[in-house]
């Protein structure tokens, strides 16, 4: 099956535990105002944004991934938003699992629960974005409701399929502490789930004012402490 691929990083240190081959698929169904990679949003069409996109066969992609196998502890499929190409993603994950390769999927969780659960059968763990726990705020930020995200989040927690959740911290735009507190309580039932708090950085961002500030170390540390106080065992700041 063919899919649209933005890039492959053979050795990635930031897409899950250890060394992982990271595959970035093209296309996204969110339009976050702080997006650093807006060129990954359109799935098809033409223009500059699609200049680097490769059409790849899932088996051919797996053959490339297998080259790196001795050096990695798995694969992380990311995006864009990789679930936008669900049939391709399913085929890719199924093929990887048939080769006994550990598979993580990095997703915004915005897909029908049935589809998410079907995908989960071929995935070892998800890395899931919790951009905002509050529906209106989520809508203003991404253009979509967070209803599906939260349903899928609950499923992933209950089924031990969640490696980490991530929130981008933008002090001038979001009520970050509300999201951190609520999300932390949700994941606290499983101490192995990490919370990664990502500092907003204005570089490469198109929509937000460049004057919007990156959060201070102190503020990030406060949020991390908040996560801990809500039961999170591992909180990482980047």
């Amino acid at each position: 099956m063919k899919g649209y691929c933005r890039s492959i990083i053979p050795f990635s240190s930031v897409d899950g535990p250890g060394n992982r081959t990271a595959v970035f698929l093209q296309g996204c169904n969110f339009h976050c105002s702080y997006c650093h990679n807006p060129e990954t949003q359109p799935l098809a069409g033409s223009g500059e944004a699609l200049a680097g996109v490769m059409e790849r066969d899932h088996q051919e992609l797996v053959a490339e991934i297998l080259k790196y196998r001795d050096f990695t502890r798995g694969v992380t499929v990311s995006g864009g938003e990789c679930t936008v190409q669900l049939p391709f993603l399913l085929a890719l994950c199924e093929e990887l699992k048939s080769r006994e390769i550990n598979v993580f999927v990095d997703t915004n969780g915005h897909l029908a629960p049935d589809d998410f659960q079907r995908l989960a059968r071929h995935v070892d763990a998800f890395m899931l974005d919790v951009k905002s726990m509050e529906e209106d705020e989520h809508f203003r930020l991404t253009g979509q409701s967070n209803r599906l995200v939260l349903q899928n989040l609950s499923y992933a927690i209950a089924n031990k399929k969640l490696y980490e959740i991530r929130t981008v911290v933008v002090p001038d735009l979001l009520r970050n502490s509300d999201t951190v507190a609520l999300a932390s309580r949700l994941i606290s039932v499983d101490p192995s789930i990490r919370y990664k708090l990502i500092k907003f950085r204005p570089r490469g961002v198109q929509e937000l004012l460049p004057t919007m500030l990156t959060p201070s170390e102190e503020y990030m540390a406060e949020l991390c402490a908040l996560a801990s106080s809500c039961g999170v065992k591992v909180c990482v700041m980047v």
Partner: protein
Amino acid sequence: MNKTLSIVRDPILTYQQKVIALARSAENSLEVLKMSDEVQELRQSGVICDLGEGNAPYRPRYIVPDYALFMQQGSEYLELLPPENLEDALHNLLILYKHVPSITTFPVYLGNLDTLLNPFVQDDEESYRAIKRFLLHIDRTLTDSFCHANLGPKETIAGRQILRAQRELQTAVPNLTLKYDDSTSQEMALDAVKTALLTAKPSFANNVMFRHDFHGDYAIASCYNGLPIGGGSYTLVRLNLSRLASQTADYEVFRNTLLPSAVRHTLSYMDERVRFLVEESSFLASNFLVKEGLLERDKFTAMFGVVGLAECVNTLLGNPLHQGDRFGHSEQASELGVAIITEVARLVAAHNNTHLQASGGRYLLHAQVGIDTDIASSPGCRIPIGEEPELFEHIMYGAPFHKFFPSGIGDVFSFDATVKNNPAFVLDILQGAFKNGLRYFSAYSADSDVVRITGYLVKRSDMEALARGKQVRNGAVVLGKGAAENQGVLERKIWAREN
């Protein structure tokens, strides 16, 4: 100015460095080694280089005492009884180190420290503090980066304490290697990677590969030299393949005429150095290390070094401008490189020297890491700095060379500081590298003060101090500074930076 007087007047050399330089100067006033005109010419042109080993060898270049035996029996010469507790053990070792000679005048091998010390340590702060002081003592008195201690392969309390102390001390000395195999616990391995990302050590030796080549135990000494324990290497002389290739652009001439001749002359020069050392210098007849069995004649070998393969191959390919056609990228260059090293290995293995008892009369191949003054010759079989391919390709390109070099070859990788958050990333890469035939792997973080120059460690802050005209304790700092200036060793590609 007279050489001796210039050493005496030098304001930057420390007292100890002056004494060593004066001894070298005196040794080099002699001309006792017999060599042919061809050897003289090849030395003059830099094709053969004895790496400052001196004109009258009076001690083996690399001495690898059997410290385990020393722990069992103490020393009559040093009037030391076997240790009964940690304090005894640490002091005995520190005393012995001051009596172990080598090319640098400091010991190039300090023992498999964790297995030596583990019988005496407790898992407590008292043991830890004693070990930390011991390591500090080593750094402050054995002021030379080629002092090398080993750890592993199994996890021990002492091993964990040594790693912790290195993270806290962040010293350049001792150099450190973890012998790594499946018996090394993941906790110990991750602890070692964490330590390497803070202070550029330990490096990792492929224990399975080394044990196979040495038929059992071995030591990693000096930079990354695999050597038999209880002996060592009489000499190390290197053949500069880059210099040799500069004499022709024709591969057939290189392979059929120049290379066999240069190898033959290098071997004859090495034979003469070994002969003088074994037969004329009194070392083996008189030194207490030999008399007490810590060194034995039948555990000595010697090392045939090669350097500058990358530039050699590029020259023979007509110095292609396009990077894809050069060593480090092109398949043709790789095949040519392997063919050259295979031929060197064949020629060296065909030569016999009965003094090299530990290796059946054969010299062991060593991928020499270069010297501070080298220009346009990369270490051993390494890809030149500035031309590195992606990390996976880099490792796979280098791996086929490693099996040829039991007495040392390795690659050094600089990682972005963010990798400290994920030390398993480096461990996974190292495991993959070993699965694919890499012999020795070094990693450090780009923001570390202690950096791996080629095979040895130096502090950036010491190099900066030396550049400002200050005296620095560690005699290897001047070598690191030269290598930084001439070979760009601080400009290595930084991996995982895109993240």
